[in-house]
């Protein structure tokens, strides 16, 4: 960095500018400006200077709202990251696929399975007990009332 001696040209130029700015009429008077800002030294005014009153109010959010929305955004971002990581995890993905396949495999029936559902299929599926009438076993499984045996006339 140059020292003050090397910067003499710039210092002189700025000094001339400074002198020019200190000439009368170059700067607004202090007191009137303070009064325009509503500063009479006794009360704290609303932060709206007279010249800016014609402009619409600032549309920016309040600081607490800004910090709150930042927190919500951060939480949402974290959730998205976690979900994305979970979806990308191969172990979790494999488990999800296996469970989905198991559920569909157990509930699946071939379209022709109804052809095997014939009358009397219960007889094939049940195991008759020794000594008990075959019909009892069938009715106990199906819940139907047994057909009474025909009377034998002597």
């Amino acid at each position, binding site marked *: 960095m140059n020292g003050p001696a090397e910067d003499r040209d*710039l210092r002189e130029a*700025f000094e001339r500018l400074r002198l*020019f700015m200190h000439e*009368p009429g170059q700067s607004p008077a*202090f007191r009137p*400006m303070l009064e325009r800002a509503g500063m009479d030294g006794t009360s704290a005014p609303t932060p709206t200077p007279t010249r800016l009153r014609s*402009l619409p109010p600032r549309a920016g959010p309040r600081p607490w709202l800004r910090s709150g929305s930042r927190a919500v955004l951060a939480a949402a971002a974290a959730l998205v990251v976690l979900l994305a990581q979970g979806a990308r995890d191969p172990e979790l993905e494999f488990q999800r696929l296996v469970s989905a396949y198991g559920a569909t495999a157990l509930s699946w029936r071939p379209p022709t399975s109804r052809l095997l559902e014939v009358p009397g299929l219960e007889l094939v599926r049940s195991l008759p007990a020794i000594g008990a009438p075959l019909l009892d076993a069938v009715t106990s499984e199906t819940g139907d009332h047994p057909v009474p045996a025909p009377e034998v006339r002597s």
Partner: protein
Amino acid sequence: MTSSETPLDELEGELEELHQDSFAWALSCCGWNYADAEDVLQTTYLKVISGQARYGRRSTFRTWLFGVIRRTAQEHHRRVRVHRAGMERLGREPSGPTARDVDPAQAAERRETATALREALAGLPPRQREVLHLVFYEGLSVREASEVMDVSVGSARVHYDRGKRRLRLLLADRYAGEGAQ
């Protein structure tokens, strides 16, 4: 000392003492637009007196005040950009010197130099313009300027060195152009 704790008379006294330099800094922050600079400085005074901006003693009052002016100017520019589009400018033309107590020849020379410097400064990037104004016009150190500008000292030094080189070139071009005419 905070703005709210400082006696109002004392605070106003400090503001008044720095008023001309503050206005020059506000002008620099507003591209030498007098009306905008007045708005910015007025709003800054409002912030300081009402306690909206508080001096925390982490720097000199002057450095802190210039930082407030700079931020206020940035807010002002954003507001103006959004809301003043299409509206007629309300600004006043800068009033010329009354020249009652000033030698006319000296005043003319100063005005010429001031205009040349202002136009050359306008050709610099904002950070370079800011650091040069703060150091050469306001008499701050580069470190203090970095505090006002809210940048690191190293960054301020880079802007300072580049700004000086570029400003010299711009001034030389201007004077060379005038000499050729």
